[in-house]
């Protein structure tokens, strides 16, 4: 006997994501899903965002890592609520993990939740979390060909941050090539340049967040 199923394999995740999205919309809280390779500078970019927006926006952070509390402790040290999710080996966050984390946040008094996804350029892009905006970070040391090799994440985002621009003189990073590839994959994506280390570009990053996300 053949049973016609026609059911999306990710249906449970998509349902949980829709729940998160309507819950956050009801609370007027924005949520940003930050996706990038390990070491691209996700936590550093979040710290820059906190420093530059905390005077006018109430923030919280959800940290996704396979293990450890390194990142959430760094955020809490700044006096910002941080929820650590340890996926225990899983390579991405899911909408239900986010739903459980939201239970621990004071949503009535938050403008923006930044979710730092597990360091990975492939899997996180497949899983909707219920976010209102998506950003990926590419550091110049990773090379300018990453949009061609991981097109999905670059297609799915609202902004692409090129980080570690202070390393430009030491890396063969072809900025024009990178920008052109992003432009052709995702013409609507905003491209920003930043060095979390020397602070350049962080004003623009915060301005973009406050104008476009929250």
């Amino acid at each position, binding site marked *: *006997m*053949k*049973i*016609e*199923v*026609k*059911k*999306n*394999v*990710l*249906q*449970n*995740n998509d349902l949980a994501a829709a729940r998160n999205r309507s819950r956050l919309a009801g609370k007027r809280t924005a949520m940003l899903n930050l996706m990038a390779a390990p070491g691209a500078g996700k936590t550093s970019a979040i710290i820059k965002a906190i420093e530059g927006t905390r005077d006018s926006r109430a923030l919280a952070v959800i940290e996704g890592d396979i293990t450890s509390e390194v990142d959430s402790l760094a955020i809490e040290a700044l006096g910002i609520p941080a929820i650590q999710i340890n996926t225990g080996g*899983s*390579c*991405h966050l*899911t909408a239900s993990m986010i739903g459980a984390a939201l239970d621990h946040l004071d949503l009535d008094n938050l403008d923006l939740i930044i979710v730092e996804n597990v360091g990975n350029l*492939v*899997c996180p*892009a*497949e*899983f909707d979390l219920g976010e209102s905006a998506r950003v990926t970070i590419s550091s110049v040391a990773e090379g300018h060909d990453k*949009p*061609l090799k991981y*097109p*999905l994440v670059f297609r799915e985002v609202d902004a692409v941050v090129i980080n570690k621009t202070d390393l430009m003189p030491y890396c063969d990073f072809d900025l024009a090539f990178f920008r052109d*590839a992003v432009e*052709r*994959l995702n*013409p609507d994506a905003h491209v920003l340049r930043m060095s979390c280390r020397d602070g350049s570009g962080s004003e623009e990053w915060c301005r973009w967040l406050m104008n476009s996300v929250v």
Partner: protein
Amino acid sequence: MHEYAVTESILEIVKAEVRQAGGGRVSMITVVIGELTSFASESIEFYFETLARGTVAEGAWLEFRPLEAIASCGGCGGSFTPGPRHVLLVCPDCGSAAYDFVQGKEFYIESIEVSA
């Protein structure tokens, strides 16, 4: 690696469908995977073998049906199939780089074959 979670999800859906149909053993599951997704069928097979053990779907054959990407051109309104190398496309008819994918992101269970 994300195929582990995905395989669990496939099994959950299959078990629920079989329950609804009044039981039986699953002999085949047909899964459609759009070529713009990053799900690897080999990994799903690998996890399935372990996860399905002891369930109604133990030993079932996984049939994967790839679905090609189709882009709709914003320049001339036509559509084209980019093929497996689907990055940095331009429309073969008008050369426009403004396109939207209208097919290729699908990932669903099409049907299951159940025997009593």
